[in-house]
């Protein structure tokens, strides 16, 4: 590890870039090369920093729980600190952010035609805030990043979006805010509980983990946290902002929204909601799991009937993120590992889908599936890329979508087979709607005259979709590269949640939740599969 404050660097680099941009004159109007290139360079540099974080990260199970820690007092009177640190889970999400931002910027070359400077500033601020969310270990700081992030996204949707953009932008910000302010009350409540217990305020997550919170308080605080994250994920029935925001956002906005922002909900559940309130978490887990199965199936069914490609992909996100939440609620190692992996996989593949849909609508200025057909003959390269990403999204074995969904279903099966069955139905449905869309877009004769002479992928578009497609395959073939750093982090979270369960619920099944005796991580691939027992969690009656 170097002496540099790497995490601060990752946050500050985009901010400095944004401030620099303020002083760059927008000379060239919409096609300003200098501003675009500068922004891209800053985001690539940030990506390099995130990769350096990965390189310096100690992913041995015995390694420190949080690394690259930075701790400075911010508001000492209330124990509020500028406290950053990452474990494997945050590391992966930060790398994902670093990876997707330059790609999103590259998609903007065609889709953003005005006010490039403002656009670039908002993108960079957004990136900084996203990285901040994933590495803040002080709840106050976390909330600050969480809220700051809404503003650039609001502008991205509202200024550069499609025709319903203002409505979508306002809906996005109000929905998210409504959830998060209740979380703020709970955060404040936690700090006062810490004050009551120790005589000092604290927003430090690690200290708050140790707090002994009575169940009735956990009940309300968990609900407040879970609501904030459920809206962000978004979990059925809090998903209604998502189709609007995704569809109306410009392509780069959609890529970031689907690729990273939704993950903050899952991350929040794993990092804060469940470990801070383990008893209440276990109490509500079945309800949330039920909702996520509903989300999986409902999202898939609604996606199936969408005439608009972008809307279809948006609803597919509801379905896929349902998997993530289901995996988290299993509260076992396989489930949470799977959820974490699925977040990364979904970021790559759905980011890719939005990028591709954006490329098509840039050419034709329509997102209606019925306007296309037979595109394979016109744009074979784009078709190939689309196929790779589609297969990744439906979870073909060997592609990234498979690993996460498989682990999640494995985890769900150990808990209660019924959830796994529901989720399995979702896998089938996702193949149906994705492949059906693929078929309608690309196969058959070219029916629409406008489609006869479309240019195929340009070099810049290759730069967008190439890395995404490559990642989709790499993640599917070498999942351990990504699962390994997350392993110790997931183990610790599961340990913590189990340790707080009533003794009656602590049966031998805890061994499975921990991933079996021999498997500290990589449960599904390296270790003998634990014997399958159904409904291991029915015992305790919590």
């Amino acid at each position, binding site marked *: 590890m170097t002496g540099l404050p790497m995490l601060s660097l990752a946050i500050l680099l985009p901010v400095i870039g944004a401030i620099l941009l303020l002083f760059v004159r927008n000379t060239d109007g919409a096609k300003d090369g200098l501003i675009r290139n500068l922004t891209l360079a800053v985001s690539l540099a940030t990506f390099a920093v995130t990769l350096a974080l990965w390189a310096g990260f100690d992913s041995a199970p015995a390694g420190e729980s949080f690394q690259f820690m930075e701790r400075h*007092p*911010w*508001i*000492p*009177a*209330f124990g509020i600190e500028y406290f950053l640190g990452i474990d494997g889970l945050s590391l992966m999400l930060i790398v994902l952010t670093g990876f997707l931002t330059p790609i999103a910027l590259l998609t903007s070359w065609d889709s953003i035609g005005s006010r490039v400077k403002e656009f670039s500033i908002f993108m960079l601020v957004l990136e900084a805030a996203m990285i901040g969310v994933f590495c803040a270990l002080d709840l*106050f700081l976390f*909330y*600050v990043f969480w*809220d*700051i992030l*809404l*503003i650039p996204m*609001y*502008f991205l949707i*509202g*200024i550069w979006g499609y025709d319903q*953009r*203002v409505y979508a*932008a*306002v809906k996005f*910000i*109000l929905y998210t*805010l*409504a959830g998060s*302010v*209740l979380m*703020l*009350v709970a955060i*404040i*409540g936690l*700090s*006062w509980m810490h*004050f009551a217990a120790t005589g000092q305020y604290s927003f430090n997550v690690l200290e708050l983990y140790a707090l002994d919170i009575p169940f009735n308080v956990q009940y309300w605080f968990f609900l407040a946290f879970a609501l904030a994250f459920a809206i962000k994920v978004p979990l059925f029935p809090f998903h209604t902002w998502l189709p609007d925001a995704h569809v109306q956002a410009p392509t780069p906005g959609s890529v970031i929204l689907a690729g990273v922002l939704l993950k903050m909900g899952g991350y929040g559940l794993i990092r804060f909601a469940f470990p801070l309130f383990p008893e209440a978490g276990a109490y509500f887990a079945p309800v949330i799991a039920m909702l996520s199965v509903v989300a999986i199936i409902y999202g898939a069914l609604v996606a199936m009937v969408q005439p608009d490609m972008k809307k279809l992909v948006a609803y597919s996100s509801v379905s896929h993120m349902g998997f993530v939440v289901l995996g988290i609620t299993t509260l076992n190692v396989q489930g949470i590992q799977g959820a974490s992996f699925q977040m990364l996989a979904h970021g790559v593949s759905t980011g890719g889908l939005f990028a591709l849909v954006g490329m098509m609508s840039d050419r034709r200025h329509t997102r209606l599936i019925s306007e296309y057909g037979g595109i394979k003959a016109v744009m074979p390269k784009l078709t190939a890329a689309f196929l790779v990403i589609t297969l990744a999204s439906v979870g073909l074995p060997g592609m990234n979508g498979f690993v996460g969904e498989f682990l999640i279903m494995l985890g769900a099966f150990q808990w209660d087979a019924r959830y796994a069955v529901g989720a399995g139905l979702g896998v089938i449905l996702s193949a149906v709607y994705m492949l059906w869309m693929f078929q309608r877009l690309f196969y058959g004769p070219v029916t629409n005259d406008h489609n006869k002479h479309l240019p195929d992928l340009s070099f810049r578009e290759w730069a967008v979709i190439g890395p995404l497609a490559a990642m989709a395959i790499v993640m599917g073939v070498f999942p351990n590269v990504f699962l390994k750093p997350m392993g110790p982090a997931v183990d610790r979270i599961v340990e913590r949640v189990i340790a707080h369960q009533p003794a009656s619920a602590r049966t031998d099944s805890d061994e499975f939740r921990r991933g079996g005796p021999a498997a500290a991580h990589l449960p599904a691939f390296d270790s003998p599969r634990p014997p399958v027992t159904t409904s291991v969690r029915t015992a305790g009656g919590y």
Partner: protein
Amino acid sequence: MFSNAFDAVIPVICLALAGLVVMLAEAFRGKGERMPLGGLALIGLVGAAAASVLLWNRNATSFGVMTADNFSIFVNLVIIMVGILTVAISSQTVERDGLPAGEYYAMLLFAIVGMMLMAQATDLLLIFLALETMSIAVYILTGFRRDQVQSTEGAFKYFLLGAFASSFFLYGVAFIYGVTGSTGLDRVGSVIAAQSMSGNVMILLGVGLMLVGFAFKIAAVPFHMWSPDAYEGAPAVVTGFMSTGVKAAAIAAFARVFLSALEPMITDWAPIIWGMAAATMVVGTVVGVAQTSLKRMLAYSSIAHGGYLLLGIIAGSDVGKAAILYYLAAYAVTNLGAFGIIALLGTRARANDDLRDYAGLAQSHPGVAALMTFFLLSLGGFPPTAGFIAKWYVFSAAVGAGYYGLAVIGVLSSVVSVFFYLRVVVMMYMSERDARPVPAPVAGVALAGLALSLAGVLYLGILPARVLDWAQASVSTIF
């Protein structure tokens, strides 16, 4: 010592002198001669600020009715800041609107004198006098655009209702005097505490009547009816001044009276303030949503902010008092910035405060639009601005005192308020300008004032620790 007796009054004297000098200068001003009257006012304000800073931690008192404890010094500094920003922003509008500069700046200074007296007074009668000094000056300022019907109407409403409210307050003081035999806060407090008067009808009447007077001045529901009209009628700079300065002074006196002298009766008045705070936050935001005039909208927003301030009072703790102080500072820089922009974009003939007037502002005035966005985000309580830290602070106080319900009402109403703040942003950034004339550019001292506001908003939002420590140090010495 003679000199010591005057210590606590020195800041007020600075300003009163400055006010008199401005008036005199105006009297001797030749026709058409330009005088830097705003500069004179600034000198007075800076002098008062320096005097206040020098009094920090000294707990000076004067004549047994005035104090210069840290609490009042903090409030004074907020008020002086309000004054400085107001003067800076006025530099562009007074001339444009053809207002009589001498009277304008003199009234501004006298209003500030009243405000500072209010923050420093420890005697109910002096609070009343300060209230009147402040109010009369502000009534005049509200009606300063005599050529405009709205201005006159707003001033008249404000005056009539304000006079009523002041008399309610005085009546309340009379009751309290009747029961306790004193108007001095410490004496009143000790009598109430010693005789456990919590159920006494006379004293309850007195408390209730005083509450009406204070609630009127901070525009708490249901005593808020005057404020949208007065705020809309007054010149926009004056509205900014009123909504921050008057509120700061009134809430400071409110907190001092209710949290020192009447603290033993907290179980009697807390439920009333609970209802008042909840109603104020909800009504302020919900009605604000329906407004299309920016000034009116910010008037309702200002009502809602009064509700948040009440959270600090009801919490009754040191955290609550410090939260009030921090909130006042944050709100002052933010709201003055917002009203300053409204004022600067207006013209002599039209106030240009309709939402549609802001369409496409980001194209014609990118800098001003960005400033306005920051101020609106701060009003809505977004990090990294002052408004966020201030809101967190008052909610923290409420939660710490066990008022989870109020905190939830507060955060939810602040979400609703974001909706209408964002409507302005939507107009500025996401709508095209129609055929209306492009407003004049903002420059010079006024721009510097706005920049100062922004600096305050960001400083209080990003590096709050120091001011927060001051706020805490301000409440630990008193009450």
